[in-house]
């Protein structure tokens, strides 16, 4: 019945198992929202990375005579109350905001996933790690951030220079205060996955815990991790804005999208576009990242792929 036919249908010759990432990309391309998101996000990144070398106005250059200008050819987005070019400030600010958002999100996702997986997989560590998570959830974040900034700003600024020092401080501060939700979600998923029969099957093969996690657990908790990641970018950008607004983030003359937004609030009635531009860019970034995450999640799930 199942006897070997001599060379079963050589026409359907076995293709070598091809890389999963090719399939992922093929599926990703069919997700219109994700492609659009990728396009918009790419455009924003190009705007902030390449933009300053094309638009050479210094974002910190004060031209007091040209202050409070509206949109025009010389200053596409106008100027602020000190005559600084908002277009250039948007580009410079975007660099910092995107860098802070992506790095802080990566840090918080890595931390959350690590703690969640370890807590879910190793029973002995579950209690201590989850109590630690509860502890962090119970901390009032803003006061904690304030204390951290107060304590470490000076020493970090001396060590790495004012801007890198503050960047590190803010990224770390946001990262280690926002991993808890991810950890909880991941732990729950891992607890459920651990009881699935394919994990038992892998144990009967003798797969050691490290590879069990990498091969069987992590790929199956990817969806919730990606969702937290895309939401995390938005939260990180907004938190950075809040810190800057409180005067605890980057120095006042150092533009970030959050700072531009808060600076513009005072002139809301006079020049609404000073609030609108940073707002639009923050929203577009968050939206496009969400769409990319959505597409990635679908593309990484073989059950959805190919539909």
């Amino acid at each position, binding site marked *: 019945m199942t006897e*070997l036919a001599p060379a079963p249908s050589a026409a359907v010759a076995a*293709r070598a*198992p091809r890389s999963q990432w090719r399939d992922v990309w093929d599926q990703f391309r069919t997700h219109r929202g994700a492609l659009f998101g990728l396009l918009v996000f790419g455009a924003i990144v190009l705007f902030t990375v390449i933009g300053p070398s094309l638009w050479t106005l210094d974002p910190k250059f004060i031209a007091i005579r040209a202050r409070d200008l509206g949109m025009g050819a010389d200053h596409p987005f106008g100027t602020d109350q000190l005559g600084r070019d908002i277009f250039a400030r948007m580009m410079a600010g975007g660099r910092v905001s995107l860098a802070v958002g992506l790095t802080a999100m990566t840090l918080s996702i890595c931390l959350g996933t690590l703690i969640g997986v370890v807590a879910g997989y190793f029973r002995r560590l579950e209690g201590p790690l989850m109590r630690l998570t509860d502890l962090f959830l119970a901390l009032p974040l803003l006061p904690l951030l304030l204390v951290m900034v107060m304590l470490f700003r000076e020493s970090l600024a001396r060590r790495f220079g004012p801007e890198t020092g503050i960047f590190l401080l803010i990224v770390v501060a946001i990262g280690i205060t926002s991993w808890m939700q991810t950890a909880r979600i991941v732990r729950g998923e891992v607890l459920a996955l651990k009881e699935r*029969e394919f994990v038992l099957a892998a144990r*009967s093969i003798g797969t050691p815990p490290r590879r069990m996690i990498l*091969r069987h657990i992590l790929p*199956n908790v990817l969806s919730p991790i990606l969702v937290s990641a895309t939401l995390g970018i938005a939260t990180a950008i907004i938190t950075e804005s809040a810190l800057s607004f409180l005067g605890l983030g980057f120095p006042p003359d150092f533009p970030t999208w959050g700072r531009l937004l808060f600076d513009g609030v005072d002139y809301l009635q006079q020049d609404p576009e000073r609030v609108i531009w940073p707002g639009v860019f923050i929203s577009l970034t968050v939206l496009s990242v969400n769409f990319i995450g959505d597409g990635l999640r679908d593309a990484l799930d073989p059950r959805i792929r190919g539909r």
Partner: protein
Amino acid sequence: MAEAARRPLVEVRGLRMYFPITAGLFRRKVGDVKAVDDVSLDIFEGETLGLVGESGCGKSTCGRAILRLYDITAGSIRLDGVEIGHLGQAELRRLRPRMQMVFQDPQASLNPRMTLAGIIGEPLVEHARMTPAGRLERIYALMDAVGLNRAFANRYPHEFSGGQRQRIGIARALALNPGFIVCDEPIAALDVSIQAQVVNLLEELQARFGLTYLFISHDLSMVRHIATRVAVMYLGGIVEIADRDMLYSAPLHPYTQALLSAVPEPDPEGESRRRRIILVGDVPSPARPPAGCRFSTRCPRVMDICRRQAPELLPAAAGGMVACHLHTLQDQPTAGRTGGPRAAPREPSGQIQQGELR
């Protein structure tokens, strides 16, 4: 199979697998679920030992405990003369290639995020030193052996039917040339026409690779088809082990008799004459098994001694082994108390047999 070559490949003695019951604020241990309670059996090389019993009697737990997927509570398990009952997982890992498992639910036992090549190749990645090309060649050979088209190598488990998925599970179990495979209800989740295919495949592979099976099932007719010997389990303990034909034609234990009387007869005439033995009551909780014989609460032929003293699994006059006072009292009036060797006499087999592994 040759009578001379009846060498036990797996020897299980006094296997106990208890799961703790905890209660209260401090998760104090208040008792045990005795899923497997004092099971002893031998599985000879090249045979298929059927393990039957109703659901919840501890068949699957027993199979998994023998493969040491659990940390057993007590007892000894020898695989090819090597004691594996209390080895750590690291030492067990080296022995894993010699014992594998086919799981009940082919959907749940395959990682939905891995391709077929990845699933079948996982044991090879873990245990065999192979180049990627060599591994792929072996994967293709395994797919041929279980009747899967080579073009399926890149597909994911959800793209297959139940029977095909079970073939994937079998190919994975075969990957490292194991000598011993525990089939944990491999056909329970499949429909009848596919069941026959999978069972035939298992038989064919057994003949080809000289495999030894522990075939766990609640399907008595399927066990009759595939097994050479059959063990009947009730509430965590083995009540009867005998050669297949002997067990099906002349069951000794009242539970076996009741179990077999429930198998429908294909011949309508025989079916009309079939007398079902209906057991009354429910299976007692494995957390609080009854005193004496486990089956005493439901046994149609219960005696006084059954409620006081647990019968031991002893050789019966007709061959096979049975744990029932009905037979031990008649055949060996004193055997119950002296407690001789529980199993059939056998030669001490201390030598470590080197399996043919690659």
